C-alpha cells in the first residue's frame, strides 16, 4: 500500500512540471489598446497578431518569424504610407507564446481577436493553423489567418480568410526525387523528423520516389528535438545501403544527421525537407559534407527583386553578423502585402482586406519583396518564383520548382 502511494506520488511528480510548463503560456504585448480604434486626430493604431513558439525547443523558429513581421511593421510605420479613412495607420505587433502546441495556438488566436481586435493573425505551424481554420472565418470577430507553413492540407479547408505564405512542399517532390535519383541511384533511406509535418512529407515524397521506379527502405523517423546522439539512427539507416538519404526537421539537428552520416562513411546524396535551411547549418557541417544535397535555396541567393535591399536592411537592424532566412524574408514580404491591402480596402475589416489582396500584391514596392510575390490563388496561397538548390562542388546550383496549382 505504502509503495503504491509512493509510485502514485512519483507519477504525479513527473507529470507536474510538464503540466506547469504547458500552462505557463506567457503573454507578450500585454497592452490593452484595441486595434482599429482611433488614436489622436489623423492617426489610428492597428494591432497585428502573432501566435507561435517563443519558448521551449522551437523558440528560435518562432522568433525568426516574428522578427520578420516586426521589421516589416517598423518599415511600414516609418514610411507613413498606409491610411484608412484619411487617418495614418500605425501597426503594432502583439505576440503570444503557444509553445508550438495547436490548442494553445487556437486559444491565443481567440484572445488576440477578442481582446486586441487584430484583423490579421500570423501562425507559423501547421497544427496551429489547422486548429484556427475551424473558426477564423466563421466566428466573430473574424480575422485573416496568415499561415507560415508549407503543409498543403491547410488549403483544403475552404477557409475564405486564409493566406498561405510559403511554397507548398509537395511542389518539391518530383524535382527533388528526379535530381537525386539521377545523380546517386534509386535506394532511398529515410531519417525524417517524426512530427505530423515530417510524416506527411515522407508519405508524399516516398510515393513519388516509388512512382519514378525507386526503392524505399525502412522509415527511421526520430524526434529531432530530443535525440541526444544521431549516430544510432544513422547506423541503422546506413546498414541498408541507401544511395540517397531523406532527412529533415529543424535545420541544426538536420545538420547533425548529415554530419553523422558523413562520419560513418556515407557517400550518397541527401533530400532535405523544406523545414531545414542550408544557411542555418553553417558551422555544424562543411560545404563539402553537404555536397550532393538537394533542398531549399538559401535566402541570400534567392533571385527576388528586393533581396539585396532586404539583406542590407537585415544587417543594419539585426546586426552585421546575422544572416536572414526565409522565415524572416517571407513574413516580411507578406506583412507588406497586408499593409497595402488595408490601404486599398480603406478598412481593417478582414473580408475587405482579403478582397484587395490580389491588387495589393502589385502595389508592394519591389525593394520590399525579397522573394518576389506574383499573385494569390483562390484558396489563398501566395505565389511567386520557387527555387531550390542542388549543392554541387560546394556551390548552390539553381533548381527551378514548377508550380503545381
Amino acid at each position: 500500500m505504502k509503495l503504491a502511494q509512493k509510485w502514485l506520488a512519483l507519477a504525479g511528480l513527473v507529470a507536474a512540471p510538464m503540466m506547469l510548463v504547458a500552462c505557463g503560456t506567457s503573454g507578450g504585448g500585454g497592452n490593452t489598446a484595441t486595434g482599429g480604434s482611433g488614436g489622436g486626430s489623423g492617426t489610428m493604431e492597428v494591432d497585428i497578431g502573432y501566435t507561435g513558439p517563443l519558448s521551449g525547443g522551437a523558440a528560435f523558429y518562432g522568433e525568426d518569424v516574428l522578427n520578420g513581421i516586426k521589421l516589416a511593421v517598423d518599415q511600414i510605420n516609418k514610411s507613413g504610407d498606409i491610411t484608412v479613412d484619411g487617418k495614418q495607420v500605425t501597426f503594432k505587433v502583439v505576440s503570444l507564446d503557444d509553445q508550438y502546441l495547436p490548442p494553445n495556438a487556437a486559444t491565443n488566436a481567440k484572445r488576440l481577436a477578442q481582446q486586441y481586435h487584430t484583423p490579421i493573425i500570423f501562425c507559423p505551424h501547421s497544427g496551429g493553423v489547422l486548429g484556427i481554420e475551424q473558426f477564423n472565418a466563421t466566428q466573430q470577430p473574424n480575422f485573416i489567418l496568415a499561415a507560415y507553413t508549407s503543409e498543403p492540407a491547410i488549403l483544403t479547408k475552404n477557409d475564405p480568410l486564409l493566406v498561405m505564405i510559403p511554397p507548398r512542399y509537395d511542389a518539391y517532390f518530383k524535382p527533388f526525387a528526379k535530381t537525386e535519383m539521377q545523380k546517386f541511384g534509386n535506394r532511398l533511406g529515410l531519417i525524417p523528423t517524426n512530427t505530423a509535418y515530417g510524416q506527411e512529407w515522407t508519405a508524399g515524397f516516398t510515393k513519388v520516389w516509388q512512382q519514378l521506379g525507386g526503392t524505399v527502405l525502412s522509415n527511421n523517423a526520430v524526434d529531432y528535438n530530443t535525440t541526444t546522439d544521431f549516430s544510432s539512427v544513422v547506423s541503422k539507416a546506413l546498414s541498408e545501403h541507401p544511395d540517397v538519404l531523406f532527412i529533415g526537421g529543424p535545420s541544426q539537428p538536420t545538420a547533425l544527421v548529415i554530419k553523422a552520416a558523413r562520419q560513418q562513411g556515407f557517400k550518397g546524396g541527401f533530400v532535405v525537407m523544406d523545414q531545414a535551411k542550408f544557411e542555418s547549418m553553417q558551422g555544424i557541417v562543411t560545404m563539402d559534407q553537404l555536397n550532393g544535397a538537394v533542398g531549399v535555396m538559401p535566402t541570400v541567393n534567392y533571385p527576388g527583386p528586393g533581396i539585396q535591399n532586404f539583406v542590407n536592411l537585415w544587417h543594419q537592424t539585426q546586426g552585421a553578423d546575422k544572416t536572414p532566412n526565409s522565415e524572416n524574408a517571407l513574413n516580411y514580404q507578406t506583412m507588406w502585402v497586408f499593409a497595402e491591402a488595408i490601404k486599398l480596402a480603406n478598412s481593417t475589416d478582414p473580408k475587405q482586406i482579403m478582397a484587395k489582396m490580389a491588387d495589393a500584391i502589385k502595389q508592394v514596392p519591389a525593394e520590399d519583396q525579397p522573394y518576389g510575390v506574383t499573385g494569390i490563388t483562390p484558396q489563398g496561397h501566395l505565389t511567386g518564383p520557387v527555387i531550390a538548390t542542388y549543392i554541387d562542388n560546394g556551390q548552390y546550383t539553381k533548381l527551378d520548382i514548377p508550380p503545381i496549382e
Partner: protein
Amino acid sequence: MDEWGVAMTLLLQEILNGIVVGSIYSLVALGLTLVYGVMEIPNFAHGHLYMLGAYIAFFLLTSAHFSYWPALLGAVVVLVVVGLLVERLVFNPLRKAPQVNAMIASVGVMLFLEALAQAIWGPNYLQMPTPYGNVLHIGALSVTQQQLLVVVAAIVMMVLLNLFLKRTMIGAAIEAVAQHREGALLVGIPSGRIAMLTFAIASGLAALAAVLVTPINLLFPAMGTMVIMKAFVIIVLGGMGSIPGAILGGYILALAESIGGAYISTNYQDLIAFAVLVLILSIRPAGLFARRA
C-alpha cells in the same frame, strides 16, 4: 561484407552508440539520485543545471577563449557554486516545509533557468567547438574522438565518485544521511552541510556531462528538458537514491533505445525506454537496487 558481417557490424555499432549515450545518461542520473537520496527532493531543475553548465563552457570557449579542458573545469566550478547557491537560497529555507514545496520550488528553478538562458544567449541552437572532432574507424565501426572521450571520462568520474563516497569521511557522511537522515543527525553529522555538498557535487556532475556531450549535440535553452525525463526514468529503474542503480540504469536505457531503435523502430525509441521501465518494475517493483525497506 556478407550478410552476417553486416548484421554484426550494425549490432556492434549500436552497442557502441548506446554506451556513448548511456555514459551521459548515467552522469546526469547520478547527480539526480544523489540529491534524491540525501534530500528526498526530486530535483526537476537538474536538467537545467546541466544546460547552464554547457552554456558556461560555451561562453568560456568562445568569448573568453579558453581551450576545451580549462573550459570544462571552469563550467564544473561555476556549477558547483551555482549548486551551493540554489541549495542555500531555494531548498534550505524549505527544509521544514512539506516535501511538495521543495518540489514546486525545483520546478520554479527550472523555469527560471530556462528563461534566464534564453534572455542571455537567445533561443538559437549553438554549436560548441571541440578539438576532438575526428572520426576513428575500428574495423567497420566508426566513432568520433569526442564520443570516446565521453565514455572514458564518464567511467573515470564514476570511479572517482565511488572512491570519494567509500573512502573519505565526507563521502561516508553523505551515504549515512542518504541511508538514514535522523540517525545521521543523532551521530552528529551536520545534515545541512551535507545537503549543500551533495547539491554541489550533483551540479558539478551535470555540468561535466553537459560539456562532454554538447559538442556531439547542440546547445539550446530547452536542452535540459530532454535529459531530465530520461534521468527520472533511470533513477526509478535503478532504485530511487541508488548510485549503482543510476549507473546501470543509464546504460540499460541507452542500450535499449539504440538496439531497440535498430531492430524494432526508431519511431518508438521513447516507447521502448518506458517498456523497459515497466518490465523491470514488474519484476523488481522498487527498482534494480532498492534501498532498505
